[in-house]
């Protein structure tokens, strides 16, 4: 019975001009987003690889140089994009993907496409995720708003009821029918997605990313089920198809367009983040009062006394090590503690905001879906934090190695010391492994719980349609 109902729904929908047009437009947008996303992902990856290679080459070939000067010379660290990032760019356009690593400072990320984008450009920046989250639900509404309401208006529901078709079978059959019609759009899109993924990242990457791809597909299918369930539930209760359409369009606009912005505002209000200027000032104020390796002060004097005692000498000139380098490293340690505190607080605020977002998802299912999609694609705030932490760890290792080399191989006040190229080669290239899928999902735990609640609610909602008013 279910197959019969589903087949009829599928036939009717695919013969309906409104659905055909909506499906064609959605499919074209999805195809364009997938292709453009894959091309852009590949170009960005090539650019990053090229820039990272050049950076390494400059680092290795910088010739004899004072290590501290080399630490100031610095390096770029690039956030490697997971393959699925071409489907969902997540927060990358807002956070940036390149960090400048240098002595004394934990810099904020740079090259944020969103900061340079015009309003018009933002309209053109639809990713596949955006289309799946916003436009496909609209397509489901177009396909399903009349599922019961039109049948009720036209009298076919009465005809069906006279046959003794159980409401539950009708509901499930219609869900399957809507799913089948949607498959006409999403099936080819999935194939195109796999092809573009394989072309952009290569076959082995496609295989390696299959679990993520499968999970991403499951999340979106679950989301579409939720939307389909809501659509059918409204259609089952609406007096007319027009009323069902109006209610559903209002619901769509408020949950997919208004709520995300509202949730962002709520999150900012509940957990305010400082402006870039205020953050820089807070870091600067926190740094003041600690050891500044470049300027004399009480802390430097205390460190000097400790160092002289340790080496049992009377003056810094008599030290077997370069006290300037020791002081600079001490300054680094102080700075590191400040950065851990300030950036830690900032990221904790982001995390709290993400939780508010996820909880707002109790009203708008697109919010937990968006969070899960970014987590699976490796482009959420948590994974940005993981990368930022790794880049900062690398910066500290590099600066420490420079300071230690300078301390060991030169004397206090001797800034003419030049380290040999072997020192540069002893510093490994920056390599970053994104957190595994389980860890990424754990970071989106609240969103996962809220999404599961939506799935359960959708199932219960469908099961609750036991009787259909035929007139």
């Amino acid at each position: 019975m279910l197959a019969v109902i589903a087949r009829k729904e599928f036939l009717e929908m695919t013969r309906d001009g409104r659905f055909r047009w909506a499906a064609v437009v959605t499919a074209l947008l999805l195809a364009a987003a997938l292709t453009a996303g894959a091309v852009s992902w590949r170009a960005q990856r090539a650019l990053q690889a090229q820039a990272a290679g050049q950076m390494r080459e400059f680092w290795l070939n910088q010739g004899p140089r004072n290590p501290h000067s080399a630490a100031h010379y610095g390096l770029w660290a690039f956030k490697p994009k997971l393959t699925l990032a071409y489907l969902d760019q997540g927060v990358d356009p807002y956070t940036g993907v390149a960090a400048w690593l240098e002595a004394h400072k934990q810099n904020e990320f740079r090259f944020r496409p969103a900061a340079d984008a015009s309003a018009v450009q933002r309209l053109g920046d639809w990713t596949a995720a955006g289309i799946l989250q916003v436009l496909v639900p609209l397509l489901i509404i177009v396909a399903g708003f009349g599922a019961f309401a039109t049948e009720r208006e036209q009298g076919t529901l009465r005809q069906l009821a006279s046959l003794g078709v159980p409401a539950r079978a009708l509901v499930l059959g219609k869900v399957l029918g809507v799913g089948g019609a949607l498959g006409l759009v999403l099936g080819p899109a999935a194939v195109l997605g796999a092809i573009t993924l394989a072309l952009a990242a290569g076959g082995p990457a496609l295989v390696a990313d299959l679990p993520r791809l499968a999970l991403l597909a499951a999340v979106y299918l679950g989301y579409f089920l939720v939307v389909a369930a809501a659509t059918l539930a409204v259609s089952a209760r609406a007096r007319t198809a027009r009323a069902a359409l109006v209610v559903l369009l209002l619901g769509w606009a408020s949950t997919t367009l208004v709520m995300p912005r509202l949730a962002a505002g709520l999150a900012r209000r509940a957990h305010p983040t400082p402006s870039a200027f205020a953050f820089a000032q807070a870091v600067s104020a926190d740094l003041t009062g600690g050891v500044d390796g470049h300027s004399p002060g009480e802390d430097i004097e205390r460190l000097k006394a400790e160092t002289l005692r340790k080496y049992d000498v009377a003056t810094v000139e008599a030290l077997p090590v370069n006290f300037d380098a020791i002081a600079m490293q001490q300054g680094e340690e102080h700075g590191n503690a400040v950065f851990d505190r300030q950036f830690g607080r900032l990221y904790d605020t982001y995390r709290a905001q993400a939780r508010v977002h996820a909880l707002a998802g109790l009203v708008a299912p697109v919010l937990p879906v968006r969070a899960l999609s970014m987590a699976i694609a490796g482009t959420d705030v948590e994974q940005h934090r993981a990368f930022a932490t790794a880049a900062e760890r690398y910066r500290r290792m590099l600066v420490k190695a420079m300071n230690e080399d300078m301390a060991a191989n030169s004397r206090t006040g001797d800034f003419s010391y030049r380290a040999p190229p072997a020192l540069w080669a002893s510093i490994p290239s920056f390599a970053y492994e994104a957190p595994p899928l389980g860890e990424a999902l754990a970071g989106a735990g609240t969103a996962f719980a809220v999404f599961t609640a939506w799935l359960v609610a959708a199932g219960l909602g469908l099961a609750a349609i036991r009787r259909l008013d035929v007139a």
Partner: protein
Amino acid sequence: MSVPTAPAPSPSAGPARGAPSREGILVADRLTKRYGDVTALDALSFAVGAGEVYALLGANGAGKTTAINCFLGFIAPTSGTARVDGVGVEQDPVATKRRLAYIPETVMLYRHLTGLENLEYFATLGTGRAFAEGELLEHLARAGLAADAARRPVGGYSKGMRQKVGIAIALAKDARALLLDEPTSGLDPKASNEFSALLAMLRERGCAILMATHDLFRAKESATRVGIMRHGVCRAELATADIGHADLERIYLEHMTD
């Protein structure tokens, strides 16, 4: 409680299929429906046997459609029962619907599907079995719809063509009983005649037919008995064989005035 019994089927009626029903295939037993202070049906009782056509006559609001809705399970009676082939509608609505076919004033079909696809859909859902295309076309042909018309989308069908698909659904379901709600309303005389011929065919197959109509002429032509209803009450029950068209009209009008 008195249970009305159906008169014996006319000699022209075919043998009833399935278990023989002593009380009639469609039985209204003191069927009452009240909406607040308004009584739509007031202890309505009748029985329709195999091969019988029972026409409920009456003005709008007389309770004809309410009676049909009680048999379909769309309305729960306030008291009394509607039975199909001995089974109470409220007791087992799915089983009773399996035995019924229903043709409303306008048979509602899916406009994007062809007549054949509509028949396949409703027949499969109504019987729970799959149909071969040839079998479906045969039912449609028997109902008077040619194969080329059957393969066209229903959006372009006339009311009469839709009625034929409705009859084909009843044939495919092999229904024990047929409920018709104003079936000839809006049909031209030729289509009405064709419809009457189809009813005669179903009658001969032993189908019990309950028809709600305003059309006295068609009731006299097609029905074996008529029940004249007013304010939810069956005022008179007549065997059409015993009266002429003019008698029926006179009696009907008498009951329509106080």
